[in-house]
């Protein structure tokens, strides 16, 4: 008969709570021996290989490469007695897995000393009163709270449906009446980590006592301690939130705002983990904002002639298959200005204590995509004519919106344009793309009264802003560059002079 053993992610350091799966050395069906290295994980402290605690055949790999897994989560199932059925019992009950673990004499399972994993059914501390009424909490919530298996297969507690309506289920629960505001037992917002049944709640004795004294049902508290232990802080936080929780009185108030988010236990906030593009953006912005002293200069400019040029080019045969926009002309204007002031196209090499002047311009275009902000760049933009540049911008934004921008596309930029005007705002103070010395923000183009040839006329006007790294760009240089960009936009023919 096959015997399935689960290997739960251990704490490979001291007090670590999670690790990322870097690579699997085994696949389903492979035979493994005890202590054979099966997986490489990266923790906050180190990259380590984990040896298998079991010998047998790999029945299932539960976590994919690249995922961040909490300590205590099962990551692999190994059949230690493969002469039998091959498929693991995905729905094996908690009691079943307990008994197989018990067969091996490993009463602790694969859990770390002192931490452990809350396996449903592992009644760490049976409650004396569990046979009768719940001890300190008048509202029985435990029996109808959805229970989740460690690997995410929802099951329900046996006593569900014994005459109890689904009063505690998320989204179905009737709204709390004003009379019960402030009473912790009035409702349980369960979007955050559905708790195993009351029997599986794990907490240290003094914490249990505290909860009992405060009249709080431990099973309704979201545990944050290692291995799913309810901590003293969790109890106090729950107690403190009991008041605001009463404010979540409208339908769907406590529904998460984003699919990837989780609702906080008071039902009034959605929390979303910081990852991928958002994480990279944050790191880039922090590193840039706090290493390069930023200065931003502004220029309001009459771009009527640029708008006329854009209109004309849109009807030009040469440009039939590409989009001509004010951004295109601005990009060209910036390239012309950089050509006149190449010192701006540089980066600060702090390690070498050198300034690196780039002979080429890789023109970055900040793009807002469904996944967040990305800044791909057009390689060797200084060599491109207006049409080539238009094609470059089109390709780059299409790739970005499709989410296919590669790291290469985003690396080695030398200067960037961010078109904040598309959102209808006048301008901003952009933060430099790390490794670059200047970034041009282009504002919305509006028709405004403007003094033109001594009279007030209706003209197309926009505001430009240029942020630069004051370590290597002096105010005069930044001002001249922006002034040149503005000159071209005001009179595109100036481009012929400087081109």
């Amino acid at each position, binding site marked *: 008969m096959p015997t399935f053993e689960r*290997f*739960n*992610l*251990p*704490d*490979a*350091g*001291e007090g670590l709570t999670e690790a990322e799966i870097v690579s699997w050395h085994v696949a389903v069906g492979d035979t493994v021996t*005890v*202590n054979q290295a099966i997986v490489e994980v990266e923790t906050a*402290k*180190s*990259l*380590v*290989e*984990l*040896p*298998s*605690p079991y010998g047998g055949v790999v029945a299932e790999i539960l976590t994919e490469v690249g995922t961040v897994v909490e300590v205590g989560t099962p990551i692999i199932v190994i059949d230690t007695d493969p002469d039998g059925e091959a498929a693991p019992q995905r729905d094996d009950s908690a009691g079943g897995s307990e008994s197989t673990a018990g067969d*091996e*004499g*490993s*009463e*602790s399972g*694969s*859990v*770390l*000393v*002192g931490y*452990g994993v809350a396996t449903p059914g*592992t*009644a*760490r*501390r*049976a*409650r*004396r*009163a569990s046979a009768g009424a719940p*001890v300190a909490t008048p509202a029985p919530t435990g029996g109808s709270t959805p229970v989740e298996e460690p690997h995410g297969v929802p099951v329900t507690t046996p006593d569900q449906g014994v005459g109890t309506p689904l009063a505690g289920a998320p989204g179905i629960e009737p709204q709390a009446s004003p009379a019960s505001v402030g009473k912790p037992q009035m409702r349980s917002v369960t979007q955050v980590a559905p708790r195993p049944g009351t029997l599986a709640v794990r907490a240290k*004795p003094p914490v*249990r*006592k505290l909860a*009992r004294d405060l009249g709080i049902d431990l099973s309704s508290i979201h545990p944050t301690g290692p291995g799913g232990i309810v901590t003293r802080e969790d109890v106090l936080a729950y107690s403190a939130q009991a008041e605001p929780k009463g404010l979540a009185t409208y339908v769907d108030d406590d529904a998460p705002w984003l699919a990837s988010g989780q609702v906080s236990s008071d039902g009034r906030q959605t929390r979303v983990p910081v990852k991928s593009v958002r994480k990279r953006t944050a790191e880039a912005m922090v590193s840039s904002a706090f290493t390069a002293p930023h200065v931003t200069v502004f220029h309001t400019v009459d771009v009527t002639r640029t708008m006329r040029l854009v209109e004309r080019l849109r009807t030009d045969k040469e440009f039939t298959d590409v989009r001509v926009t004010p951004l295109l002309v601005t990009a060209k204007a910036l390239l012309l200005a950089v050509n006149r002031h190449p010192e701006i196209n540089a980066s600060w090499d702090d390690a070498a204590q050198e300034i690196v002047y780039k002979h080429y311009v890789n023109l970055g275009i900040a793009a807002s995509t469904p996944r967040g902000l990305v800044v791909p760049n057009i390689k060797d933009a200084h060599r491109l004519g207006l049409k080539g540049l238009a094609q470059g911008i089109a390709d780059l934004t299409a790739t970005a919106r499709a989410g296919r921008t590669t790291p290469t596309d985003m690396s080695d930029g030398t200067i960037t344009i961010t078109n904040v005007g598309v959102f209808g705002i006048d301008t901003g103070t952009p933060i430099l793309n790390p490794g670059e010395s200047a970034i041009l923000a282009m504002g919305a183009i509006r028709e405004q009264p403007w003094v033109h040839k001594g009279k007030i006329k209706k003209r197309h006007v926009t505001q430009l802003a240029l942020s630069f790294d004051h370590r290597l760009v002096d105010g005069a240089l930044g001002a001249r560059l922006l002034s040149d960009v503005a000159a071209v936009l005001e009179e595109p023919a100036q481009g012929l002079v400087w081109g």
Partner: protein
Amino acid sequence: MTDLRPSRQAASTPDDTPLQLVTPDGTFVASDDNARYRARIGHLDSEDLRNLYRDMVLVRRFDTEATSLQRQGELALYAPLLGQEAAQVGSGRALAPQDMAFPSYREHGVAHTRGLDMPHILQLFRGIDHGGWDPAEHNFHLYTLVIGSHALHATGYAMGVQRDGLVGTGDRTKDTAVITYFGDGATSQGDVSEALGFAAVNEAPLVLFCQNNQWAISVPTSTQTKVPLYQRGAGFGVPSIRVDGNDVLACYAATSEALDRARSGGGPTFIEAVTYRMGAHTTSDDPTRYRTAEEEQHWRDRDPVERFRTLLVTEELWDEGHAADLEAQADELGERVRSYVKGLGRPASASMFDHVYATDHSLVTEDREWFADYEASFTDTQGGAR
């Protein structure tokens, strides 16, 4: 072949060359300089030499198994000794039964030579208790996790031995020495300097055995000392020697001489065993972040276990039969370590009161009773055992 790369400090003089009796490629070194140390291993017969090798292999197997158990979530932490087997087994085997050892937390090899069953060491690393053995039973103190503090405990114990009249009697079964183990990092702690000072002026029967494994977690020896560590002893008036810590016979010989000096009333000795921590500082550490693959390879080529195996084979003291027996013994040990650790339960809560004082103490008794009441006051019926 003496390029032990002891540390990255400026020019070490020829005098800093460590004592070596076996080269890294496994041949005996015979010179006038090491004659008196060669004499100290003269009595070791073929079986003794084979046993030194067995010790090192078993200790290494224990080490590997324990490291795996930590990675499998069975131990909270583990401090591997990989690479330091010779320094520990060599020095440990030089001890007499009545000698007392004060280890740090990595002396699994010394523990083995003191007759301690190695699996018991893991009770500490599983968090079951503060040490899985009775220090008096093996004359092996509990592991000290505080860096260097036990050098002073050992000094005090040695001064006690002296005052008990167990030094310089000429009776080999009675004269007692004390040895303390610490690392290069501990030499930066005031405690070790204090121990050297106290031991010197009191002529305490003490051996201060420093395993210079090159790294105090991520801090290299070069940032801790300007001079080779063994030279520290001279300033305190403590005779000192630098020994190749990956040469089990050199470690045995040097320690044996130092212990004899101590037992005969000659006072303390400082030994710097130049070795290398081939693994991580502990399982929480990632050494690839601070040292190079090249450096690790350099030391792998000087592996203490492999070196001694080569010597035994060359001297025709080791054959395939020996190897097969030892492998079976090691496998048995590995499985025993595994099952022992997994079989460790949870100590009763009240056991925390057991060793607070050697004898009954009214305040502790009161605390124990209060705690029992407190535990009983919960609605939960069961204790913490899972």
